[in-house]
């Protein structure tokens, strides 16, 4: 466990250095959030709040939470892991007395926390003060929310390791880089709050793992998921986490059997 913590800590501190990039990200996110919330407000203005699954103020908060946690989503493979696979540096990783899956997971965990923190904190301040991001709905929501976020971070890291693993089969990862963001955007609730989807599609969204990345923490914050529903949603996150880790370990074992390190 200790080396893993060290890896996580080193990478976390390294990633905290990219502050200029984070500021650019914050500006971009504020802009996009403003446009999306304006469009949603216009939709709501014509239809009336009452019959919708979420109130407009809740939807606005949902969108800002999504903008704040934008970099939490598993967008791409870990660039350094890709570099290792391409250059053959993977051999050194295999020599280390650390489980490779755990190593990649720790790296992913750092990648899914430090940049998120840098972007989320200013966004919470700006959106909270000026742009309609509301506080958690209740004390229960405020207490459950960190748990849901922790689940989302772990789930996103497991996704990222799976994406890394695809490098053992196809070094370019082009397909993964085009396909995964599309699925994640749509099915996690980043593009559009999941409660606004048509009723007939919701059962599918409910089962898939993607909602654990965004929708679950947001709706816990809103108090839209509370009590038994919240407990079920958190369990859903952890069940998928276990499944994805098991799948990842299995793929890693298979991938390593066929990996060839070019000498030189």
């Amino acid at each position, binding site marked *: 466990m200790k080396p893993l913590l060290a890896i996580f800590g080193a990478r976390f501190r390294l990633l905290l250095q990219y502050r200029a*990039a984070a500021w*650019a*990200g914050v*500006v*971009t996110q504020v*802009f*996009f959030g*403003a*446009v*999306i919330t*304006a*469009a*949603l407000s*216009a*939709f*709501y*203005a*014509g*239809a009336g709040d009452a019959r*919708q699954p979420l109130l407009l103020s809740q939807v606005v908060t949902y969108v800002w939470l999504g903008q704040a946690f934008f970099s939490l989503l598993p967008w791409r493979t870990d660039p350094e892991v890709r570099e290792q696979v391409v250059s053959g540096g993977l051999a050194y990783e295999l020599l280390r007395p650390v489980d490779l899956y755990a190593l990649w997971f720790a790296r992913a965990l750092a990648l899914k926390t430090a940049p998120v923190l840098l972007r989320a904190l200013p966004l919470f301040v700006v959106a909270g003060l000026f742009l309609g991001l509301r506080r958690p709905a209740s004390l229960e929501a405020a207490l459950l929310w960190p748990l849901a976020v922790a689940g989302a971070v772990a789930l996103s890291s497991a996704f990222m390791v799976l994406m890394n693993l695809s490098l053992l089969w196809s070094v*370019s990862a*082009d*397909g993964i*880089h*085009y*396909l995964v*963001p*599309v699925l994640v*955007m*749509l099915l996690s609730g980043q*593009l*559009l709050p999941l409660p*606004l*989807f*048509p009723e007939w599609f919701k059962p599918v969204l409910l089962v898939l793992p993607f909602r654990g990345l965004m929708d679950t923490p947001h709706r816990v914050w809103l108090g839209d998921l509370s009590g038994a529903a919240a407990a079920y949603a958190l369990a859903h996150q952890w069940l998928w986490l276990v499944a994805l880790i098991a799948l990842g370990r299995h793929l890693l074992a298979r991938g390593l059997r066929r990996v060839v390190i070019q000498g030189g």
Partner: protein
Amino acid sequence: MNALRLYARYVGLSWRAQLQYRASFALQTLGTALLSVVDFLAIWVLFDRFKRIAGWSLAEVAVFYGTANIAWSLAEGIGRGFDDFGSVVKRGDFDRLLLRPRSTVLQLLGREFTLRRIGRIGQGAAVLAWGWRSLGLGWDAARLGLWLLAVAGGVALFEGILILQATLAFWTIESLEVMNTLTYGGVQTVQYPLAIYPGWLRRFFLLVVPLGCVAYFPVVRLLGRTDPLGAPAWLGWAGPFAGFLFLGVALRAWRFGIRHYTSTGS
């Protein structure tokens, strides 16, 4: 060799290069198309629930969406050299461009014409065609002319933004991510009618970056509607020229930037 023929040579070279990796090209084209399909799916989901946005129907929004996306994808494909200009400055490659007896704008435009944007253009065209048909807009020559003018103005405007972004790189040595708010953010904004937005956003996209002039007024006019905010109808034909004007200003800024260029020396 005149400039146009040289440009055609550049583009031909760039396309041949991109088509060398067929599988990768197909995948990327499919990927961009898929991303934009999902993008429109989100709009469809909202209309499925709410039916209208501030009085506009899905078919009308489809025309706005298609126009904005086609213009942007064309501009992005054409102006890839400017989009990526930060890396050119960083490597010191711009020095080489300056040594050649051709305009820098022509050379940068010739660096790459990105073919895979075809995926997004195709999706935009499909959405547009669907909206156009369901509204029964027909083959009226004036209407088609107005649409072409809007797209031309849109391409000019987006190209202007990309050139300004590149101009800033003379000082920042990096392509600024913040400029994405004007390009991607701009497209995201004008895929709905501009009238639905709060005042500050509207004024920004009319007076600072006149995207509304090229992608809103003409479309309102060709849909045969009047602007809910009371803009006169002649703005439909006049608006797109704001895009050309913007491009002109951007080119002036570019020339100013070149005079202040100092090589990174790498």
